């Protein structure tokens, strides 16, 4: 029985010690931020809560956050009436600051509940900001915060980012979830590589590769459209890839899942066309070093299905010609993409990483990011594409 008394005694002393529940925070007491938009501050006054020492490359940041309002989220068919359609289940708040955290503090000032970033799914950055001051400071803030998901989306928005926070798509009650769905589905359909935040960090840190981020635009206040990919160099956005170039990029970087439908002229009938949709892709990159210069060969093979044809010419006899023409066009498209990126000096293909891995002795002579950018700008590329048409749908001709 002595043991029991001892146990009781220790319990009475330790329990009050433990009942601090220091980190307990009920979900309804959290200011759950679902989406965050970062815009440059142009004319207005910049609030500065963190003290006058707060400084960054930008004049200031304007954060616009989408905060979930749990009470307005319909729970199910039975309680559908709780929130009238005009009431959005999110609340859009914005604050300005000299740095991101400074603006975050400003945001917190406006929210009664503690800002919670664990459900932050999308961070939109204004293209203007990405072009000028870059996103180095933004990503540092994200990296340091343990709540941020590595699998969140960091997205560049064409035009003002805060508009995307206020957009009210019809398909989903929560706007951010709609945006996330758009991006996720684009990845699943093979329209976009899986470029989540963690991927950006890894590539950004690597010396021989430059990162890409999804590039979206908001139109008419409601429609969110994927515009392609934004290319970065040294944390600054240097240009954008349109959807067709995105397809070429994915062809060259061995992204298996293909989903683009690309139109090619019908052989012998320039007034009509066929649309080919990729199903499967493979590619290999080889870097040759002939003692003085480097050169790159990219071999890709694409399996496609015929999705549509216009005109009356049956496709069954034309399949080889179509394939040949598509192969040439794709190879040409890849070369043009390379030219474009070489103009930016941004090695989005990771050729530098390839060199570092396969030829460490050579890399030792390069070793810095700047040097590699120079080499990349003049690197000769050869692209070899082979398109295989596998199926033509339910139609035999």
């Amino acid at each position, binding site marked *: 029985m002595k043991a029991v008394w001892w146990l009781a005694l220790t319990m009475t002393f330790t329990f009050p010690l433990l009942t601090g529940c220091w980190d307990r925070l009920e979900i309804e007491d959290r200011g759950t931020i679902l989406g965050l938009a970062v815009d440059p501050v142009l004319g207005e006054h910049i609030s500065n809560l963190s003290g006058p020492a707060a400084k960054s490359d930008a004049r200031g940041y304007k954060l616009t956050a989408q905060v979930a309002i749990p009470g307005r989220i319909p729970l199910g068919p039975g309680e559908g009436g709780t929130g009238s359609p005009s009431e959005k289940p999110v609340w859009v708040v914005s604050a300005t600051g000299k740095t991101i955290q400074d603006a975050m503090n400003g945001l917190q000032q406006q929210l009664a509940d503690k800002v919670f970033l*664990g459900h932050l799914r999308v961070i939109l950055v204004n293209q203007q900001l990405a072009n000028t001051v870059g996103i180095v400071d933004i990503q540092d803030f994200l990296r340091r915060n343990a709540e941020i998901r590595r699998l969140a989306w960091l997205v560049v928005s064409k035009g003002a980012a805060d508009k995307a926070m206020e957009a009210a798509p019809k398909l989903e009650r929560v706007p951010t979830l709609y945006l996330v769905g758009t991006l996720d589905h684009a990845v699943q359909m093979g329209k976009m590589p899986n470029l989540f935040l963690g991927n950006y960090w890894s590539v*950004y*840190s690597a010396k021989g590769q430059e990162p890409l981020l999804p590039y979206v635009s908001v139109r008419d206040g409601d429609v969110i459209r994927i515009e392609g990919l934004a290319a970065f160099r040294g944390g600054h956005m240097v240009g954008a890839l349109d959807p067709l170039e995105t397809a070429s990029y994915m062809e060259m970087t061995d992204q298996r899942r293909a989903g683009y439908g690309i139109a090619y002229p019908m052989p012998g009938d320039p007034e009509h066309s066929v649309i080919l949709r990729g199903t499967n892709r493979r590619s290999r990159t080889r870097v040759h070093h002939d003692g003085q210069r480097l050169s790159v060969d990219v071999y890709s093979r694409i399996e496609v299905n015929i999705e549509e044809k216009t005109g009356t010419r049956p496709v069954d006899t034309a399949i080889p010609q179509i394939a040949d023409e598509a192969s040439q066009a794709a190879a040409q498209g890849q070369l043009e993409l390379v030219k474009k990126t070489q103009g930016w000096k941004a090695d989005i293909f990771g050729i530098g990483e390839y060199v570092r*891995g396969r030829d460490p002795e050579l890399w030792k002579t390069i070793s810095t990011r700047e040097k590699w950018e120079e080499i990349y700008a003049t690197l000769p590329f050869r692209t070899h594409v082979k398109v295989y048409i596998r199926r033509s749908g339910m139609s035999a001709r």
Partner: protein
Amino acid sequence: MNKPKSVTSLQLTFSIGTSIIGVGILAFPRITISLADTGAPMTAVFAVLCAMLGGLVLVHLGLAYQDETLFEYADHLVGRILGGVFLFAIGVYFLELSALATREFGEVVVTSVLQRTPIPVTVLVIVLLVVVASRNDVAKFTRILTFYMPIVYFPALVIVALSLKNAKVANLMPLLATFHDVPFQNTVLSTGIVTALFQNFMIAGIVIPFMYQPQRAKKSVLVGIGLGGALYVLLIYSALSVFGTEEMKNLLWPTLELAKTAAMPTFFLERLDPIFLAVWVTAVFCAIYAAYYLSIQAFSHVLRFQDHRALCFMGMPLVFTLARLPSNIVDLYTVTKMWGLIGLTLTFGYPLLLFLIHLVKSRHVAAKKRPRRVGTTS
């Protein structure tokens, strides 16, 4: 001391395999890669081999003195006074090791999960668990470690499997960086640091005399270190393939980030890192437990205690105080690194010393006996 035979060879294997997985797995990819670049996984392999060598020495000694623990035969070999001094050093060493592990655990928890919970509270809970568990005898000690083995290994393997989706082979290249551009001393240092994480294999020294079949200890120790080592190598390879060397240097705890990158497709849990951390507590517990147990056993042998139980609670405030010493996280890692490297001389050097003395002594005995033509075995 009578030693009931109660430990199977499988238990020894699993105990070693579990006890060497500890707090270190979170940070070691960063530390080694910043030293040895893509040669780091290779240094982890070297470290496994080193630990295996150390283990072999222990097993050899254990087989020569099948009924005695490391501490007991050390007394025979170097004498009680010198043995006591060494043993005291080992006790202090493992005590500090467990204190550092406890502190590192606290730091990880306070940074990533419970930001506002005071470190002493979380540390107190884990230390309390360790202390209570260390009141057990060797049979229960191995049984607990064995039981936790799947709990420690399985989640790590799941994380590795799930993160492979984001792996890039180019990040691993060049595979043999060790032989290219990494300075030799960095390779050695990196190997040493990883080897220092394996030091809990010393428990073999106190477990072997309790085994049903001590002759199987060699295989057990090798497989045990091999299992733990394989997990280390696997983790560093997958972390490297996902992050690449440059990103890895930015990450405080790459393995935790690896868990953050892992997402289970079509699963109701969106993030696995808190789960990983929760399970990682088990690994931490096992490692601290093994180190603390070793240290308590060493002290109770030095002080000639009949039973180590009395010491268990006395060690607690010590661990607590030692854990508070490093002033910040950078300091903590510097101290851990230095302490681990210093300890290598103790955990590897001391058994080696004993082994050499044993060789000399047994030669001497054999030479003495030869004229009398008495057949001696072992």
